[in-house]
């Protein structure tokens, strides 16, 4: 029986394993050094905040693996020997495979800051990071101030986590406005306000210069590049992005760049080895996507695809339209299609913001054809299916706005803003788009 070994029990590895099991009865082994069972990394913050216990982050009950004949092996893979198809573990054990899927995810970036390996300096990626956090920042007595470096999604989550335990936080962000490399200035400004209104000391356009140690080798303070200011802290979070977790592969025969290089079939240069998830790097970026996509959804989709290939139906990885979501403190964010931080040459934008300053939508469309390109929404939930169809059918912004009621996904009885939104567009563009009533028929395609 063919033995499929998967290194990494994150979303991509687990999805691959599940789908291979569904399609075949090959022997499957899931290897991980992090935890015995699959858990949802995205939920780590809720464990620290006391919303959930760690076991709640595990999407499958523990009996699931045995029942589905997916073997679990805990251990850290040290070397991949591609000639003889053997994995070497750091405790000396070995494991033979017929096909290997590398799904080792990411690790937090460190940019060679002086002092970056001190005690109390941590990333926020693995379960072990959460445990360190419990050691160095369990409450505001042990940790009188925490500093976070790097304004991305994980950084703001870490800020929220510490804030939930009433630990004062200073948040150093290199950019002039939060996450403005990804979000347009309007959305970015909303988040700046949200962070500040939660009492977090947000420092924009601020870089970390150096990390200072105390007598026992724990972080004591940080020095700021621009001003030379010293900020005392008991914990420092490094959340300046992630990069593929593939150091142990660098010396092998497998081709790597930033990540493990793969083609559209998620195959590496070695014929029986595949890479998926955060650690995979496309030779050529797909569409407007980046060569490395470190998000949950793409990991899952790659897992689904590679399972097909391994089970004899060689399939190209063809992600559909881009979508993503996040939550910034109390503000939910969803995006469908592309809304770049800076409009491209042929793009035009439409922006509406609610008077509360906590909700907005931002639509990008083609200046000439009016084709809908993408939408960002803050504080209003929207239907994925709706926008997926709009993008596939290349509908115009006028069409999208006229059918905006179909798109709304907020809970029942919520105040709706479609009328106001369409009104604003009509006013700005001297159009007369008429908002259509919500139709179940259209939403559920029952006709």
């Amino acid at each position, binding site marked *: 029986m063919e033995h499929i070994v998967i290194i990494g029990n994150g979303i991509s590895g687990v999805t691959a394993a599940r789908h291979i099991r569904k399609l075949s009865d090959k022997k499957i082994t899931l290897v991980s050094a992090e935890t015995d069972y699959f858990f949802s990394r995205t939920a780590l913050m809720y464990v620290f905040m*006391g919303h*959930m216990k760690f076991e709640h982050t595990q999407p499958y009950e523990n009996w699931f693996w045995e029942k589905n004949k997916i073997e679990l092996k805990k251990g850290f893979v040290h070397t991949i020997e591609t000639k003889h198809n053997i994995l070497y573990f750091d405790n000396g054990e070995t494991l033979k495979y017929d096909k290997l899927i590398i799904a080792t995810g990411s690790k937090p970036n460190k940019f060679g800051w002086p002092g970056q390996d001190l005690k109390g300096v941590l990333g926020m990626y693995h379960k072990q990071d959460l445990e360190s956090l419990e050691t160095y920042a369990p409450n505001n007595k042990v940790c009188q101030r925490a500093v976070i470096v790097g304004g991305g999604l994980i950084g703001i989550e870490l800020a929220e986590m510490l804030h939930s335990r009433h630990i004062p936080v200073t948040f150093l962000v290199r950019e002039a406005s939060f996450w403005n490399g990804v979000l347009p200035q309007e959305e970015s400004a909303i988040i700046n306000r949200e962070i500040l209104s939660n009492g977090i000391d947000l420092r924009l356009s601020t870089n970390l210069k150096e990390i200072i140690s105390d007598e026992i080798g724990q972080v004591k303070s940080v020095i700021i590049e621009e001003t030379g200011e010293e900020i005392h802290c008991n914990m420092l979070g490094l959340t300046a992005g992630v990069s593929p977790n593939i150091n142990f592969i660098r010396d092998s025969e497998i081709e790597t760049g930033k990540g493990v290089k793969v083609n559209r079939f998620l195959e590496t240069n070695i014929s029986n080895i595949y890479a998926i998830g955060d650690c995979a790097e496309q030779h050529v970026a797909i569409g407007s996507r980046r060569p490395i996509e470190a998000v*949950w959804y793409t990991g899952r989709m790659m897992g689904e695809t590679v399972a097909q290939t391994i089970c004899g139906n060689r399939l190209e990885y063809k992600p559909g339209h881009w979508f993503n979501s996040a939550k910034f403190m109390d503000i*939910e964010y969803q995006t469908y299609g592309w809304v770049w931080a800076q409009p491209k040459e042929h793009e035009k934008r439409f922006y509406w913001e609610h008077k509360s300053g906590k909700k907005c939508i931002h639509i990008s469309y083609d200046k000439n054809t009016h084709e809908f390109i993408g939408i960002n929404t803050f504080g209003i939930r929207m239907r994925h299916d709706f926008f997926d169809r709009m993008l596939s059918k290349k509908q115009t912004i006028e069409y999208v706005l006229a059918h905006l009621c179909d798109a709304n996904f907020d809970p029942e009885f919520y105040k709706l803003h479609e009328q106001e939104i369409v009104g604003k567009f009509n006013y700005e563009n001297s159009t007369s788009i008429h908002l259509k009533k919500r139709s179940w028929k259209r939403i559920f395609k*029952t006709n």
Partner: protein
Amino acid sequence: MKYLQNIGLALFLLGLTIFTSLIILGNYKLTPVVLDKVVKNKAIKSELFIEIVNNKIVNETFNEPFSFSAEIISAMEVANNAHKQNSEWNKIIWDKPNSFTYVFVKQAGQGIVKENKRLFWWLTFGLGILGALLYIIPNVIVKGPPGVKNNGIWFNAATNRGWIGWFVFVFLVGFYLLLYFCPNYIVNWTYLVDPISELLSGNLASQWFLYGFLYCVVMSVMALRMYIKYRHNKYQILRTSSVLFFQIVFAFLIPEILVRFEKPWYDFKNAFPLDYDFFFSWNLDQLIASGGLGLFILVWGILLTLIIVPVMVYFFGKRWYCSWVCGCGGLAETLGDPYRHLSDKSLKVWKIERWMVHGVLIAALIMTGFTLYSYFSGVATVLGIKVQTIQDIYGFLIGAIFAGVIGTGFYPIFGNRVWCRFGCPLAAYLGIVQRFKSRFRITTNGGQCISCGNCSTYCEQGIDVRAYAQKGENIVRASCVGCGICSAVCPRGVLKLENGPEKGRINSTEILLGNDINLMDLVNQK
């Protein structure tokens, strides 16, 4: 703010302590006049009983309710035994000893509480309410801006099955045991609400009036907590207002007012088989005897169960009842909200749940079948079983132990919908309709789920919502009461409760939205 909350907590605990200690306060002395009154009222025919009471109890002073009750019960037993030996069946006192005794204790009670009903109302209910409000209202500021604020729930001994949770458990179970089985020990509590009862129905308060009043008070206070916690969520606000309205008006005020006009006590929203004694002969007789209104109630009760309930479930899901109308649901969603995450989500418990809840439904139907057969045929025994016995067993096991003691008492241990999930026969019935013939579903928003598990954790019905959401499947489950909390706590906007066309309601797509269309088609074909 914290300071204010601490004062609130202290006042609340003080009120609770006074309330609890009332049990042992006061004297009990049965005067001949009172004895006469009770004998007439209860139509007691046993001279022997009256004689024993006269000799041993009348004009004696007892300084707690326990020994007083014990004396009455022993008199009753002695008399009953004698009558049984002499086959004087009409003289036997058939009442349950403790409820029989209740009337005597209520009448015989004396002392500080009975003489200062209003003062003690303020010292118990008053302090409790004031304290609770002082504790709850500052949360508007303490918990930060509107939004999901479940911070620290799993660290708090009150909400993570810690010692406070167990303490509350013991307290609640104790309360229900007293209420259902020893009302004769809690007459002091009923004195507190006598003035209100007299105002409404003109009668002195029974233990059930006390319970009804307490229920409304607790729900109102905890509803305020819900309003604050979910002030960003209109669905939660409206739903909470609705259950509160139905509890206060339908379950509490209307029935009491009916009694004032000498009509039968009836809660118009309480549908059979939750209202399991609706078809009991005493109820049917009473309804038929009370003229037009009685007949209306009879027809309404039958229509409610057979037509209104299922039709509404077809259009809106069982939530219209369980989360918008029902009293049990109402308490679970207010007093029980802090415990919702304690429900068990495992597959094993789901199996147990299905056996239990449908088992209770079948038991209720069988019992009612026996009851109706005996009612129309006039026989007391069906298939060799006494109908009265079946009713008693059901009333004891399901009506009292399951719905009350376990249903509410276990909030801090098994979560807030223990009764609704494992025991309620009406929920089982609604669930069957919801699962097979309804427009209601929880729509999953394409591929947006990140499997974080907030939804499953906070589902009071123990539904593993994530298991569906992460596969892009809609959630269509018999047990979902449509509380909407899964949707509220989801950080990615994945879930929406809605009533749409039946077609495509259950969508088992294995591959999620987001992937290329070909792949989706390919996998979904299989």
